């Protein structure tokens, strides 16, 4: 563990623009690798060529109908979860908060599964609204626990994880009771396998809208991070900004779960990585998280495809394998402070 002073010093170093450029470059490389790699591998130059000049060959169909939608979906889901993570950590002033650790992903999943069973004909697009309802309900419960001020940071995270475990158990029970396991189990692990353009079109408007508002309002979110007294003196404004942030969290996390299942740890880790790289300026953190989230999730997806090749590891398992130790590391740093 580096000295505490060292960590603080490093905060002011990186230039955000340079960082953004490097991250985007890395993202492009990972996406290209993802498009080239697979059971039917393509040379990188061929993949690149087909991206810009699609033709009627099977390879072109592979790139455009299978691998590109998958990459797009991973990017959008990654961005949604990462930005939702930044907002929820700011809003609750809890560095252990994320759509997963506060049970919001699981809430969305539960309502989606219930609606899929109640309405078997529900389209993929139709699952977005149930997801919002579930995310909002759990979000409200966690918010109530959070503002009551009765729990410290770690107990609150533990409560969120308990909610997550209970809701996940309920989902399992419902699936078993309805013999609906096969189709939904894979989705439950959190996966972007079998991504189609239709799913991309479902999440895209929410990413653009939610992410766009988060960017525009980015500077104002800083008010939430201020201490109680300063926050009170800014009064009304802080409350309105808080409400906006909460809505954005529900929209971003809910739509991500609707298309990809509850993928964990992205929303928790990305804000920490970004803050370490660039400091605490809200707007910068949001922008860089919106790039780092996609980078992390596309990389995890690629890893999941490579690790047990030709079998596919759902990306949610990969993020858990990476994320759980990283979560312990974050806890460790909390203790050190």
């Amino acid at each position, binding site marked *: 563990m580096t000295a505490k002073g060292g960590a603080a010093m490093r905060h002011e170093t990186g230039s955000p623009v340079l960082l953004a450029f490097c991250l985007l470059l890395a993202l492009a490389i990972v996406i290209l690798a993802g498009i080239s790699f697979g059971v039917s591998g393509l040379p990188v130059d061929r993949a690149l060529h087909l991206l810009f000049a699609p033709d009627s060959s099977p390879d072109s169909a592979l790139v455009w109908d299978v691998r590109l939608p998958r990459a797009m979906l991973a990017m959008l889901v990654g961005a949604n979860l990462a930005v939702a993570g930044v907002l929820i950590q700011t809003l609750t002033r809890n560095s*252990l908060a994320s759509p997963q650790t506060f049970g919001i992903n699981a809430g969305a999943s539960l309502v989606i599964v219930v609606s899929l069973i109640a309405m078997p004909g529900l389209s993929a697009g139709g699952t977005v609204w149930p997801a919002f309802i579930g995310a909002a309900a759990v979000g409200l419960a966690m918010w109530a*626990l959070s503002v009551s001020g*009765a*729990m*410290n940071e*770690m*107990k609150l*995270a*533990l*409560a969120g*994880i*308990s*909610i997550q*475990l*209970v809701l996940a*158990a*309920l989902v*399992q*029970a419902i699936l*078993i*009771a*309805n*013999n609906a396991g096969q189709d939904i189990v894979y989705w439950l*692990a959190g996966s972007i396998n079998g991504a189609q353009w239709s799913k991309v079109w479902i999440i895209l408007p929410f990413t653009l809208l939610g992410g766009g508002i988060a960017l525009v309002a980015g500077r104002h979110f800083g008010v939430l991070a201020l201490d109680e007294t300063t926050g009170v003196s800014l009064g009304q404004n802080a409350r309105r900004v808080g409400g906006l942030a909460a809505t954005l969290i529900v929209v971003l996390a809910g739509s991500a779960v609707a298309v990809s299942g509850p993928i*964990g740890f992205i929303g928790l880790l990305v804000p920490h990585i970004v803050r370490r790289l660039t400091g605490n300026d809200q707007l910068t953190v949001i922008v860089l998280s919106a790039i780092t989230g996609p980078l992390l999730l596309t990389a995890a997806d690629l890893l999941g495809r490579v*690790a*047990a090749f030709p*079998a*596919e*590891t*759902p990306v949610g*398992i990969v993020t*858990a*394998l990476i994320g*759980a*130790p990283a*979560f*312990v590391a974050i*806890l*460790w740093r*909390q*203790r050190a402070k």
Partner: protein
Amino acid sequence: MTSVALPSKSLRAASVCLVVAILILVIAVLGMTIGAVTLSVGQVLDGIAGGKNAFIVMQYRAPRVIVSILAGASLGIAGTFLQGALRNPLASPDVVGITKWAGLGAFLAGLFTPPAWAAWAIPSGVIVGAVAGACVLLAIGRSFGGGIAALALVGVALGMLAQALMQYVMVLVPTRADQSMVWLAGSVYGSTMTDVVALSLWLGACLPFVLIAAIRLDAGGFGDDTLTSLGISPGLLRGGLIVVSVLLCAGSVAAVGSMGFLGLLSPHAARLLVGPRARHMVPVSALIGALTLSAADLIGRLVALPNEIPAGIVAAVIGGPYLIFLLIKEAGRHD
């Protein structure tokens, strides 16, 4: 409770034990009679004696009922010892992920050894997994300085890691996926007389250590200085309690998989009912563990007929809210 008026705490504990034992008996009788074929109590007794329903009763229902009672009891005691050893009300073997590591160990052992070795390979895997999980938790927990919620959170994260590892191996070796699903959720389904015998032998072997640990448990609440002045080595005492807890937990995971929340719930319920003294608390939490697991199994069998919900899922649905309630209740106190 009528015993409130009685002067002696021991009498109260005894009556609580009696009431819980009667409840267990009722659940057990229900568990024996209810199923695809409903039997009357008389038919069950006849089956036990070797009558015409002997096959259903002795092959299917009795092992299941007995295993749920034994495994529940050992998880209850394991939770009591671990919470006492770490002086942490949230540190039961299931919350801090030790059951998940035990399940992972069992799964890997089953995977990498020939099927003929399963009888001893899987139990060894369970023990190695549980011990490894406990060691990692304690090693990391030590450097955290013993914050109650911090240790529990580290344990939860380590449990998630074990679960993800198991899911990853399931992807690698899909043919074993069914087996590992049971380890993941925790279920009494498919228990046989062999399981009953194995678990009984294991618990019998643990019993002397459990008794010694139970006698020493009260001392665990004292500070290290007090212990030393009493002539007890704090490290030895806490280490011993943890070892016994891990062994009990390993035995139950070998029988029923990564059953969650029982080890957390039982000691708390026991403390509420009979107070914190070990000689009252240990038997009561064992009985409550047994009651909870057999009830969870019964509920799981009834709630979604003709399907069965694994008892582990039912236990999570009951135990999770209880953990949150505990967190809220404990919130006012210092960390």
